[in-house]
């Protein structure tokens, strides 16, 4: 057997995994009955349904037209995600200004062109804008500077 439609094959596999995952975890909760459904009832039914749908997509992928999954480009993917993760973790300890600089610099590394001068100017503008709009304008409770500094 040869996988013809790789997109569908992996999509099907993903749905089967999610469906079974939900159905299996749901076994920890009471099932209840048709009249009084327990917390496990709805997710179990849906999880199994999803697994069946996924299986159908998977089986069909052996018969349908030839496609390939377009290649993943890891540079933008990983750098953008790291940038977001760092921002989330560092906003509280480092404050909005430094977190914005980190987000913009790491995020910009994921793009095609990276020029220090442009990126630093952009980060400065965005940090100033963020402080003005979010801290002063909308009075969201962010630290502006690192908490340790006061």
């Amino acid at each position, binding site marked *: 057997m040869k996988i013809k439609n790789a997109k569908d094959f992996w999509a099907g596999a993903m749905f089967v995994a999610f469906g079974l995952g939900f159905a299996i975890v749901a076994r920890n909760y009471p099932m209840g009955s048709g009249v009084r459904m327990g917390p496990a009832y709805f997710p179990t039914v849906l999880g199994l349904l999803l697994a069946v749908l996924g299986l159908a997509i998977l089986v069909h992928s052996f018969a349908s037209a030839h496609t390939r999954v377009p290649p993943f480009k890891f540079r*933008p993917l990983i750098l953008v995600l790291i940038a977001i993760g760092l921002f989330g973790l560092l906003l509280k300890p480092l404050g909005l200004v430094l977190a914005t600089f980190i987000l913009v610099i790491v995020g910009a590394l994921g793009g095609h062109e990276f020029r220090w001068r442009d990126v630093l100017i952009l980060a400065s503008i965005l940090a100033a804008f963020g402080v003005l709009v979010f801290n002063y304008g909308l009075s969201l409770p962010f630290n502006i500077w690192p908490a340790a500094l006061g």
Partner: protein
Amino acid sequence: MELISNLSLGFGVALTLTNLFYCLFGVLLGTLIGVLPGIGPVATIAMLLPVTFTLPPVSALIMLAGIYYGAQYGGSTTAILVNLPGEAASVVTTLDGYQMARQGRAGAALGIAAIGSFIAGCFATVLIALFAPPLADLALKFGPAEYFSLMVLGLIAATVLAHGSLIKAIAMVVLGLLLGIVGTDVNSGTARFNFGIPELSDGIGFVTVAMGMFGIAEIIVNLEHGEKREVFTAKVTNLLPTRKDFMQAAPAIARGTLLGSALGILPGGGALLASFAAYTFEKKMAKDASQFGKGDIRGVAGPESANNAGAQTSFIPLLTLGIPSNAVMALMIGAMMIQGIAPGPQVMSEKPDLFWGMIASMWVGNLMLVVLNLPLIGMWIKLLTVPYRFLYPAILLFCCIGVYSINNSSFDVLMMVLFAILGYVCIKLECEPAPLILGFILGPMMEENLRRAMLLSRGDPMVFLQKPISAGLLAVAVLLLVIVVAPAVRKKREEAFQE
């Protein structure tokens, strides 16, 4: 006349200084993000959701609605001048609009798009005012069984109208339903699927999912392709179309408006579907279709009217039934819930000022758009020359701050990363994220209504078929599936989306 007194109540609300300001802000922001490729109304509304918490409910909804229909105006500017859809619904406008620009008729194309959108917007506003009250009356008679069946129909319709594989779209809906019920079960108090993480007991935030799957995942995909953008900077003169243009475009505007209004009401419909359908329709209707794709003004007028009409009538199911028909409407539900308003038919009777104020504001907003947009075109053109490498870090920042500020939690930002990965994988595997978002918002409502219906019927699932309205809704859902699966239609559908 009740309609007139209702509308005057609405205009009374919409014309207060505060609401005029938020309406203006919404439509301008909508136009801005419509003009900029790579950021759409879904991501923008999701970003602004936390901010709306501090506003009065009417102002918040007026602003968010303005973003959606404002984006339809802005999207056409980019489509015509840059040959790039600024917004998904303006893909078809690139076909003839850009060709018109190359022939030096950019002004006429922009003008007719704005005028068509305005006419369509006015018509759709009246339509909402006329049809929403009787529909809401009907919906008040709905019990849990009817609601459950209605949601089934809505979800099925959304998958039928999504492009790409039907079965994948259904699987995405089911996955969305499952993700939606993560968190504490309201009936038993059991914390479900939280893996011992306290933050998950409150469920996954809707904004987190929407931003991750739409906002961030799209940025990453955009970064994979190089940037090439050729802005038509040649002077745009003569914004008023000629008399001949008008004569040719007028019937197309009328047809686009009607078609768009009808398609907007359908669950799963909205601006995107409306514009595609209108273009195909114009091509079929034309006696001489040879000019389509080479700068036919009808190819701009029809879809541009249709997308604006569709954007507005898609508010009908939201306002009358409390059921979102597309991802933007799902966000509007989120906005209403943030304000403590349960979306549904009771909104109209309990909060008439909110309901009619919002409808009146749509007309006001459309007027603002047509008056402001044409003089502002020069500014939008300047904006288009801003490279994406400056834009996307800004979008990233706003997404992060938006998600973080909902609960002031780093956890939500990290969850957004997970959903960005899911969204990225889904794009690569050709699974549309929109049905997942719809399922996500409907998951808890569906479970609740299913439970209530089964409790009332003492566990007899036949109740869904015994109640006439419920049975009718399910029959339509089955019919839709059969029609799509039937081979002949399937081929047509693929052709339609190919175009």
